[in-house]
């Protein structure tokens, strides 16, 4: 029943764009996908998996100042079956550079990665997002999606220097980290997210420096009370002709009704150097520090340091091959080698 409902939901989300826009609207339909080979190698075992587990259908349409956007991803779940997942469904009205308002299900304006790359792997350097900013069903630490209201804009603060703001009010974060509250929020309190970012040209590229604050409540589940969530983040990014640098850091504090606070600190640095022929070697260093005794929301997690190195070759427009190795530096157990072919059309 649930699977059937989800299938109709994605049909409806794509159909809504076609029906809601007037005849003169500009419509666009794109698809993104990736195929991967994962070789997990340790001293006593080597295991190979192939996957082709994501097919992303993206539709958008605009008419005058109104834009509708829908992203439906067909993903393989734990049962090895594809199932559609409506990742984004949002409507926006653009008043001007100083204000755009959106409503629906969207990627949260937290840090840089989350609303810069979305689900199409071809656009990002690594085969997977850094662990901290992965999606809810991939074990990420941030709420990657919100359902609610979003406003953003840019204010000039100097020659070519602008301050971008984002404000979001949305349903509370899911009672478990893999859940997004698409409707029927059990809590009266709503999540609030604010981001401020300075954008400035540096050399022949652009630098971004920003901060985030999230205030939220998380509904109780059996064996765990309702939690408060406060999240503070900083990010610094440079995107230039030769250098791509993304650094993000977070403090995530969960509080229980007894007054106990559980602090998780996480962050990563991703560096890519663009070489001739669109070949970009990259490296990511990531650290996740959970409180001693664990966090009541990030259950089953341990502190870890992750290292990733790879190379992306963008050999045609929106078509890339990546080779990557990643390893948890604390456990030292095994290295994951991944080859990915990612594309969009």
């Amino acid at each position, binding site marked *: 029943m649930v699977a059937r409902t989800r299938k109709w939901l994605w049909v409806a989300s794509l159909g809504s764009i076609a029906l809601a826009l007037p005849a003169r609207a*500009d419509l*666009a339909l*794109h698809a*993104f996908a990736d195929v991967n080979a994962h070789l997990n190698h340790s001293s006593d075992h080597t295991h190979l998996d192939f996957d082709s587990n994501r097919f992303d259908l*993206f539709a*958008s349409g*605009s008419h*005058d*100042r109104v*834009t509708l*956007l829908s992203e439906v991803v067909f993903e393989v779940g734990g049962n090895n079956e594809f199932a559609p997942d409506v990742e*984004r469904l*949002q409507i*926006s009205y*653009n008043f*001007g*550079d100083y204000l*755009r308002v*959106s409503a629906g299900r*969207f990627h949260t304006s937290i840090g840089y990665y989350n*609303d*810069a*790359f*979305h689900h*199409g792997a*071809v*656009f990002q350097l690594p085969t997977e997002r850094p662990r901290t900013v992965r999606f809810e069903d991939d074990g990420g630490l941030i709420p990657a999606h919100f359902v609610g209201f979003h406003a953003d804009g*840019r204010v000039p603060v100097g*020659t*070519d220097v602008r301050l971008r703001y984002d404000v979001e009010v949305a349903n509370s974060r899911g009672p478990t980290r893999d859940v997004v509250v698409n409707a029927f929020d059990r809590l009266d309190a709503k999540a609030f997210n604010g981001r401020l970012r300075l*954008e400035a*040209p*540096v*050399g*022949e*590229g*652009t630098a971004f420096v920003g901060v985030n604050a999230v205030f939220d409540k998380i509904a109780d589940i059996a064996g765990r009370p309702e939690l408060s969530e406060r999240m503070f983040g900083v990010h610094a990014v*440079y995107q*230039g*002709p*030769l*250098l791509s640098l993304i650094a993000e850091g977070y403090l995530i504090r969960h509080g229980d009704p007894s007054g106990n606070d559980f602090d998780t600190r996480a962050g990563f640095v991703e560096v890519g*150097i*663009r070489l001739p022929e*669109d070949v970009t070697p990259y490296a990511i260093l990531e650290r996740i520090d959970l409180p001693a005794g664990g966090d009541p929301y990030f259950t089953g997690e341990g502190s870890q340091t992750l290292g990733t190195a790879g190379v992306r070759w*963008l050999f*045609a*427009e*929106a078509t890339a091959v990546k080779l990557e190795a990643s390893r948890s530096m604390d456990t030292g157990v095994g290295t994951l080698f991944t080859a990915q072919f990612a594309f*969009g059309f």
Partner: protein
Amino acid sequence: MRRAAAVLSLLFASAASAADNFAILARAQPSKPWSEAALRNLFLGATRSWPGGRQVEVGLPAADTPEMEWLAKRIFHLPAREVRTIIRQRVFTGEMGEPRSIASAEDCLAFARESRGGLCVIDQAAAAGRAANTGLLTVQ
């Protein structure tokens, strides 16, 4: 120290700029020089409105045209396929609408003339025939 400074300057800049045979044709804008950063923001949807309030509509040169090469090298300092991929990414993020594909100077002249706030790359010689309601944005 000097070596470190040289490496840093290489990371923040690319080698050579393409010649300025081309410019940006824009609807309802005065002809004047714009900074590279401001022009990049227009093509990336980071600037959504023109001074005066009209919505920016991006006309993207077709792949493998001299106009696309110029836009990529002169404004972005990147290979053309990288720029086209980044613009796709910006469409995917919802930061900008689908760009109009511009195949020729005639296409660009018509798009700039007839759109509400369109911009596209044009050969400066062909731009002599532009409509009175369009302006030529050159690179500062």
